[in-house]
């Protein structure tokens, strides 16, 4: 039976068209601002030479390389008569000179050296920065920004304590002391996990709602329900449809994710960086760096990210399944689903900010996908719980499964005409 | 006068109808053919839903495609399956269709109660159609076909879903209407047309086989229909030995009918052919299924 249901999906070319459209859209996101990221290979060279771990040896080596290159820099403008230690000092005093007298190759070499130095300096300062990091202070600022108070404030501060402990452990592990693309310059983490993550989540949502609604409503919209639901399988046919939905949706979403990631990783080279901890200081884009609740490598984080994306899509499938049973019309299902999403995103903004209820309101499957770049991390005060993602998915899976059973129960007792 | 002039309809390589030539004057025409023979294709061409690949259909000498809305203005059509809005009442639904048919609101408001009375739906005129039975919906369909007092009335399986009394009433209605218009109804139920049709059109192998009055059709088999009774236990032997066209039970015995050029033996007695015999003879036993 499931096979026949799947054929209905495969035979609708619209899903393939949509999939291609979404992949193209993600391609645009990936290529957007690619020019600003053309110096990424500088890091690749560093990593190839010194490894990803920052240690004294690597720092000494880098300093030596800078010193060596500075000899060349200092010869660029014999008239200046000064000896510069670092390329940025030279650049600062020679803005006009650079573009008038240097060839493109020289310029490129100079800027790459400058960037190299930036990696060096940042690496050198990592320990100092982390010794001053204060998770509680970060939480306080955020609490002030969003105006939390009372019970909610207390809870968040408790969680900040937990984060503080994790921070200490992180420092002990040396997770922060790893080279990675400079987050403050390139914002690669945001590009991959926030922009693309969010895009995939919404695109997947559209695919999932349409595929699930197609299958569940098929007999109603093609007026075949008298035949279909009076066969031996009867109304339990809907369970087959759900099973087929799972298969079709997992395939569609995985295709979308896979195609997007393949484009991403072929444009931006991560081959040497797969095992760098995601909490590396270099990955940070804001003054308060990303801190994952566990010691996760980039690769592990990507896997968890994909898993979480996929599971959230299955939640949408379950909701669509129940909506379809009640509404029996794909148009209504689609827009009612949109309504659910909107309400889920809006409700947290009307709840009072002084009780834990505000935090509970954020445990919803639509808020979940708004900030995929801080999944499994303590960087958002509303989701500052190690198992926030797991709890959200599990809780709503239970709710939606119960809703599904209830809908089926009602459906079986419903007159069809 | 409606003339179907050597019309063929192809869908790519598939032949739906081949070289159909027909002429209709006022009166009732029964289009008799099993499902899939091309009945609906012919009807759809008559109502301009689809266009002939070859040939043309003319009304009073003019191609109906060129006549366009002038032709459709004269048309009443009841499709096999037709759309209605569940949340509309029959009155509102007919009002909507009268707008499509270009009937003035004033005229429509007079006509609609009359028509609904004619099909026996006056009591539910203002009830939503959501809960209507198949037969009631079908009667709404008949009413809408008559809205514009059509000169050409085309009915595709009009009696589907009607009970025997409703059928009888419907047949009576058609005979009343037939004076000054062309009525073409397709059916595979012989009794629907047997008593009322002026002519029967039979389609076979994608083209017209016969277009004759019932009497003439029956004459084709005149003297060739035989009937006999047999016990149940002999039935199987009969079926094997003779090409029976129909069988029915009567007084605990089986009555067999079949076509033969000569009387096989004295137990078989010659009977008058009926339209059903012709139908069954032409299309074989499966046709009535």
């Amino acid at each position, binding site marked *: 039976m499931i096979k026949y249901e799947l054929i209905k999906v495969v035979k609708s070319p619209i899903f393939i068209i949509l999939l291609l459209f979404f992949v193209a859209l993600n391609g645009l996101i990936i290529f957007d601002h690619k020019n600003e990221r053309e110096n990424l290979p500088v890091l690749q060279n560093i990593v190839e030479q010194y490894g990803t771990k920052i240690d004294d040896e690597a720092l000494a080596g880098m300093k030596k390389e800078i010193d060596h290159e500075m000899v060349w820099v200092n010869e660029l403008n014999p008239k200046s008569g000064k000896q510069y230690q670092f390329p940025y000092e030279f650049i600062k005093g020679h803005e006009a000179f650079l573009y008038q007298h240097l060839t493109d190759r020289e310029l490129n070499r100079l800027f790459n050296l400058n960037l190299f130095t930036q990696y060096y300096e940042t690496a050198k300062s990592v320990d100092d920065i982390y010794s001053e990091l204060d998770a509680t202070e970060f939480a306080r600022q955020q609490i002030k920004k969003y105006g939390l108070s009372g019970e909610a404030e207390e809870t968040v501060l408790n969680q900040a304590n937990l984060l503080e402990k994790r921070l200490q452990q992180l420092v002990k592990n040396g997770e922060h002391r790893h080279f990675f693309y400079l987050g403050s310059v390139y914002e690669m983490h945001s590009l991959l996990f926030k922009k693309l993550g969010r895009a995939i989540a919404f695109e997947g949502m559209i695919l999932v709602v349409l595929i699930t609604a197609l299958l569940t409503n098929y007999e109603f919209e093609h007026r075949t329900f008298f035949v279909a639901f009076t066969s031996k399988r009867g109304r339990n046919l809907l369970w087959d449809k759900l099973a087929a939905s799972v298969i079709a949706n997992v395939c569609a979403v995985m295709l979308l994710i896979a195609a997007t990631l393949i484009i991403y990783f072929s444009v931006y080279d991560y081959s040497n960086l797969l095992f760098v901890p995601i909490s590396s200081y270099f990955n940070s884009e804001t003054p308060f760096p990303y801190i994952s609740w566990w010691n996760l490598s980039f690769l592990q984080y990507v896997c968890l990210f994909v898993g979480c994306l996929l599971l959230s899509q299955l939640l949408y499938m379950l909701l669509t399944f129940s909506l379809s049973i009640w509404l029996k019309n794909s148009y209504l299902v689609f827009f009612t689903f949109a309504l659910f999403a909107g309400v889920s995103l809006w409700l947290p903004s009307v709840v009072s900010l002084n009780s834990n209820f505000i935090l509970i309101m954020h445990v919803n499957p639509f808020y979940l996908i708004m900030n995929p770049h801080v999944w499994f991390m303590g960087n958002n005060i509303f989701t500052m719980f190690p198992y926030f993602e797991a709890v959200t998915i599990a809780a709503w899976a239970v709710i939606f499964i119960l809703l599904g059973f209830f809908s089926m129960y009602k459906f079986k007792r419903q007159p069809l005409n | 006068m409606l003339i179907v002039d050597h019309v063929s309809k192809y869908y790519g390589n598939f032949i739906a109808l081949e070289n159909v030539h027909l002429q209709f004057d006022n009166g009732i025409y029964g289009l008799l053919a099993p499902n899939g023979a091309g009945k609906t294709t012919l009807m759809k061409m008559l109502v301009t839903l689809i266009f002939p690949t070859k040939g043309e259909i003319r009304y009073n000498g003019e191609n109906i495609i060129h006549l366009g809305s002038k032709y459709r203005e004269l048309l009443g059509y009841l499709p096999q399956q037709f*759309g209605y809005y569940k949340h509309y009442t029959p009155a509102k639904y007919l009002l909507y269709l009268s707008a499509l048919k270009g009937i003035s609101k004033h005229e429509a408001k007079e006509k609609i109660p009359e028509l609904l009375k004619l099909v026996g739906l006056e009591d539910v005129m203002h009830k939503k159609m959501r809960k209507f039975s198949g037969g009631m919906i079908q009667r709404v369909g008949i009413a809408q076909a008559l809205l514009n007092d059509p000169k050409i009335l085309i009915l595709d399986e009009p009696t589907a879903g009607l009970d025997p009394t409703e059928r009888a009433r419907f047949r009576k209605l058609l005979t009343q209407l037939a004076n000054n218009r062309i009525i073409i109804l397709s059916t595979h139920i012989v009794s629907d047309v047997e008593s009322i049709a002026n002519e029967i059109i039979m389609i076979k192998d994608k083209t017209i086989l016969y277009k004759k009055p019932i009497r003439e059709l029956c004459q084709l088999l005149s003297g060739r229909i035989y009937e006999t009774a047999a016990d149940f236990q002999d039935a199987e032997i009969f079926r094997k030995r003779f090409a029976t066209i129909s069988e029915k039970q009567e007084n605990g015995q089986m009555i067999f009918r079949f076509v033969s050029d000569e009387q096989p033996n004295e137990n078989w007695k010659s009977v008058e052919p009926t339209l059903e015999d012709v139908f069954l003879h032409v299309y074989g036993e499966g046709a009535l299924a």
Partner: protein
Amino acid sequence: MRVFLYELRKLFNWKVLLLILFISFLFYKLFLSFYFENFPNGRPAKDEFMITKEMINKYGHEMDEKEFQHFKNWYKQKKDEANAYLKSQQDAEKLGITTYEQFRQLDLTNKQYADFHEKVVFVDQADVFWELQAFENIIEQYESKGRDIESYTDEDQQERVKQIMANNDVNSVFPYLVYENYNELTRFWTVLIIISVVMVTCRVHITDRLNNAISLQYTTKTGRNLFSLKLLAALAATALITTVQIVIFWFFYLGNGTQAFFPLSINSFYNFYYFWFDFTFEGYIITTVIAIYIVAIVAALFSVFFSRIAQNYITLIGSLVPIVVLLSYCTLKYLVGELFAILHPLMLTIGTFLVLIAISTIFIIYRMKQEKLVDLI
């Protein structure tokens, strides 16, 4: 006419209207209410808003060199106010801060200074210090007008900036924050309009197809002209929805109190955008409204087309998703948002409009011709 009205009425199904109402409400709450509730957004934006309004009273729509001198005097007066305030503060005396100039150049890495600064500006919220910031911003912008020409690489753009500089309009006291606020609101509101229009018009044909109504409708006198009538009904519905949405928008927008700026030129020294045409704010608003109607109609044309050819709702919604996404993207970027700003090549904006109108019209005309020719099985 009656058929048209019936079709129009069929489009406004109560369930659909209810959905649109809820979706609009959520859209408003999630994307729009911020720009109504927080306008002007914080300080010194609020002060700039008040001061520019005051400037209109004092100088009229433009501020010429002479008036600018007056403005600088006005600034000086405010500075005196600040000085007086500082003198009245004991902490200031302790820290040795007696003038505004000193205050302005405080080394904020010094904790004592930073605390004092914080107290004055954020805790006490002494108005004058915010106002002075606003004054400084305006003076700086006035004195540096036209210097941002360097940031435009294209010759046409530079030419246009020069043209604006040569014109008295550049002295208009129209502030960027009024433009920015209108721009954000109107571009997001247009996305809402696109969604509402598509939600209503995409049902125009498909409900009849799913209801098996086509064979009946197309054999009536109206017959194959029904497509045109339905198209008209969909366009009327589009006009209606767009108008209602725009009226509601203005109901909220008037609350922002920007009416005083309507007659001002938006190519002002104090707007961060320059435009290809010499718009007053009013003129610009009318232009965006026209753009909104065009976008809405284009959306409707596509939606009617797909409504006729799609076999079911899934295909219909699936084919409209890319259209709504692309149309919304262009709307947000340059078709309604930042409309005719020289940031975007003039030909790109006009070209996109023309292409959109052309493609959607071709789709519809193609189908209209098909309607007369195709078999309806």
